[in-house]
């Protein structure tokens, strides 16, 4: 148990405050004063604030490591945000920021990757030809997002986390629909927002459930430390549910929280918004929809790991949904032709991996994969953005090809990213994915063998579609139009430097959390430094012990599957380019299903959107609102009063002051008479 009070560290507030200040400066100059500030100043403020936040985060990390393992907890309690009482108990939600190993890793990722992407954005948005006026607006939203994400991560309690949770949702909406003049982009933004709201509803329900349970046992609190302390009291409670009957409260709450996580992290069935979110600018896709915001769900599950360790039903559900999402998204990714869509489905799939690990009880593995994924997926997105810039906003890989020699830096770094995500031994993705597969193999979740199989299959598919993407984009003949071909060139330095930095980390990030099994092989004791670092704050799910030999076997299997995927991709898209189409023709039904993404959007449209629209339009609007409330209640009252006044009451209002005095006196006398009766 970590010391709940923690070490006071007043500098923590500046980590979220600096981006907030930057966002406020942008907001005030842009929104209130209507005097946009110059581009260099915008760059300096935005990037400067995030880089400063990153430096402070590093400082906090150093502070944290300086403490002994059990007491790594820094607290900055600003003020009491909500002070109240519940039935004789004091309840307060503090505006407090906490850095413990888990949030320390997260803020480093958020501010580190975030500052790289801010720098990248300078080049990307500079070169963007579409709407120059949005330059500062873009950075305002980006800063606001950084603030919200840090708020989410650093929040000491569920309410503050929820504040950040909603904040990142808002910023995501703003940035997806950044080029709002295109209706499709605005639609995508709304879609993301609405789907997220469904998840948020679940999150809220979870908060309510936990809070009411804690009130029931007499310790109302919403801080994570407080919940963890009182958790043993509510672990045994149960809840009567309609249809299901008695259910354990922790399971229900866990599922509610997971619904929120599924919304934010794009899991089945709420994943549909993420592919469409690619309508936003590419840096946004990299930062929000790959590296940080979408991992908030994973972070939340890990943050509540003490709850999920007790909630076996909820954990199993998470594991299965994660596994299925991973496979499902990977299959869709096989046939997508939009470079960003492929990466989006890959993100959904990788998030599925993380939930698979979390559901299996390997929370450390989930965070590990979260970290490595943040690096290589940000790298891939930024690389795709670089490609898109080079191709003058052409995103279809069918119109690319042969770019390797034209934009070599992008191509090489992209290749590093592909290798990392495909699970090439020695790169970051290999270690984290391997740990997830091993833990799913070792877990006690019902049907864990199938889960392992699904994970393994997904690994192969991942390898296949990523190499497909690489081959189609960078190799072969260039399929772009002739005049476009002449203009293809490498983007500027502010785009390339983040790529190189991220490529470096994509290669090396895996060694932060080198699983012990590989550490033993290499002769490094305590090699899983990330896992050991996170250990005290994460619960440990029950896993079977695996022999080293078994783990090597599993690794070999994973490598084999990845090689298989690579080989297939090489064959279909590099060696024998015509073969892929013949495959597609041979299996028309499968190909149609996959290209249409299993018709999930259409299904949702039919089952949910249309009935809802029908209900709101025909019933709620036309009958209830316009018919009943407007016509009868509002206008009816007015009409009645007007009719009464026009035909009777107005004669009382004769303009003679003293007739009014008369009525007043009569009223007063009546009151006096009543009182004296």
């Amino acid at each position, binding site marked *: 148990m970590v010391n709940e009070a923690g070490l006071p560290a007043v500098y923590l507030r500046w980590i979220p405050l600096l981006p907030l200040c930057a966002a406020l400066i942008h907001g005030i100059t842009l929104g209130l004063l209507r005097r946009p500030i110059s581009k260099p100043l915008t760059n300096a403020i935005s990037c400067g604030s995030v880089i400063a936040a990153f430096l402070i985060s590093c400082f906090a990390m150093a502070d944290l490591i300086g403490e002994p393992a059990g007491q790594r907890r820094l607290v900055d309690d600003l003020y009491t945000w909500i002070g109240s009482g519940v039935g004789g108990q004091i309840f307060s939600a503090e505006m407090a920021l906490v850095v413990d190993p888990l949030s320390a890793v997260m803020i480093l990722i958020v501010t580190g990757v975030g500052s790289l992407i801010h720098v990248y954005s300078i080049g990307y948005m500079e070169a963007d030809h579409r709407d120059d006026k949005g330059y500062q607006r873009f950075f305002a939203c980006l800063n606001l997002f950084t603030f919200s994400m840090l708020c989410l991560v650093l929040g000491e309690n569920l309410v503050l986390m929820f504040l950040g949770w909603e904040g990142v949702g808002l910023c995501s909406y703003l940035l997806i629909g950044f080029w709002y003049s295109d209706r499709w982009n605005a639609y995508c933004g709304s879609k993301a927002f609405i789907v997220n709201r469904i998840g948020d509803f679940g999150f809220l329900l979870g908060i309510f459930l936990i809070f009411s349970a804690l009130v029931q046992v007499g310790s109302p609190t919403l801080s994570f430390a407080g919940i963890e302390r009182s958790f043993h009291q509510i672990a045994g409670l149960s809840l009567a549910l309609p249809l299901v009957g008695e259910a354990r409260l922790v399971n229900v709450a866990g599922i509610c929280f997971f619904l929120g996580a599924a919304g934010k992290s794009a899991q089945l069935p709420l994943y549909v918004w993420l592919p469409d979110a690619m309508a936003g600018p590419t840096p946004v896709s990299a930062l929000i929809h790959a590296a940080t915001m979408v991992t908030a769900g994973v972070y939340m599950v890990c943050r509540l790991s003490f709850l999920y360790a007790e909630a076996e039903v909820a954990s199993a559900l998470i594991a299965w949904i994660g596994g299925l999402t991973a496979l499902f998204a990977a299959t869709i990714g096989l046939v997508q032709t939009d470079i960003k869509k492929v990466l989006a489905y890959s993100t959904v799939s990788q998030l599925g991996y993380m939930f698979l690990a979390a559901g299996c009880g390997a929370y450390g593995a989930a965070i590990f994969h979260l970290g490595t994924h943040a690096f290589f997926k940000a790298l891939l997105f930024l690389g795709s953005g670089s490609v898109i810039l080079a191709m003058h906003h052409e995103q279809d890989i069918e119109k690319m090809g042969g770019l390797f020699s034209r934009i070599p830096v992008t191509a090489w770094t992209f290749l590093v990213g592909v290798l990392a995500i495909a699970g090439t031994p020695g790169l970051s993705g290999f270690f984290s994915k391997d740990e997830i597969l091993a833990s799913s193999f070792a877990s006690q979740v019902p049907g864990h063998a199938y889960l392992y199989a699904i994970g393994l299959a997904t690994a192969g598919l991942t390898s296949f579609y990523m190499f497909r993407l690489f081959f189609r984009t960078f190799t072969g003949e260039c399929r772009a139009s002739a005049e476009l071909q002449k203009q293809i060139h490498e983007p500027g330095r502010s785009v390339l430097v983040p790529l190189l930095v991220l490529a470096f980390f994509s290669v090396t990030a895996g060694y932060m959390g080198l699983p012990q099994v590989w550490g033993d092989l290499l002769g490094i004791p305590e090699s899983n430094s990330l896992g050991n670092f996170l250990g005290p704050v994460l619960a440990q799910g029950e896993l079977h012990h695996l022999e080293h030999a078994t783990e090597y076997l599993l690794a070999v299997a994973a490598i084999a599957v990845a090689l298989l995927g690579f080989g297939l991709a090489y064959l279909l898209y590099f060696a024998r380019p015509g073969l892929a189409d013949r495959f597609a023709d041979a299996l028309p039904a499968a190909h149609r299903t996959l290209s249409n993404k299993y018709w999930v959007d259409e299904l949702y449209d039919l089952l949910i959107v249309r009935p809802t629209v029908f209900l709101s339009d025909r019933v709620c609007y036309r009958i209830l609102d316009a018919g009943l409330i407007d016509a009868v209640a509002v206008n009816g009252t007015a009409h009645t009063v007007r009719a009464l006044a026009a035909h009777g009451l107005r004669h009382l209002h004769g303009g*003679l002051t003293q007739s009014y005095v008369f009525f007043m006196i009569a009223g007063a006398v009546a009151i006096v008479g009543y009182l004296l009766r």
Partner: protein
Amino acid sequence: MIPLDHVIGLSAVLFSIGLIGVATRRNVIVMLMSIELMLNAVNLAFVGFNRMWPGSDSAPALSGQMFVLMVITVAAAEVAVGLGIVISMFRNRDSVDVDEVSLLKW
């Protein structure tokens, strides 16, 4: 000792006189003065009742007199605004007869 029911009775009498003034006189200024009279009558009642329950040495009760102070202040404000209205009314109508200002009707 002054019997308090006489004080309250005097207050009631003055109040009624003021009420009659407001109800019957047409001169706006006299109406305003009658309102002042009514306010004074109420003040008298307040002071009288405060005299009836004056509290103790350790905790004197002065709510009634507080009310009087507030009423005096409010009366001053009321007169300032009321006479301002009277002046602008006289300026527009050349009269201070309430019956003359009857445009606001129906």
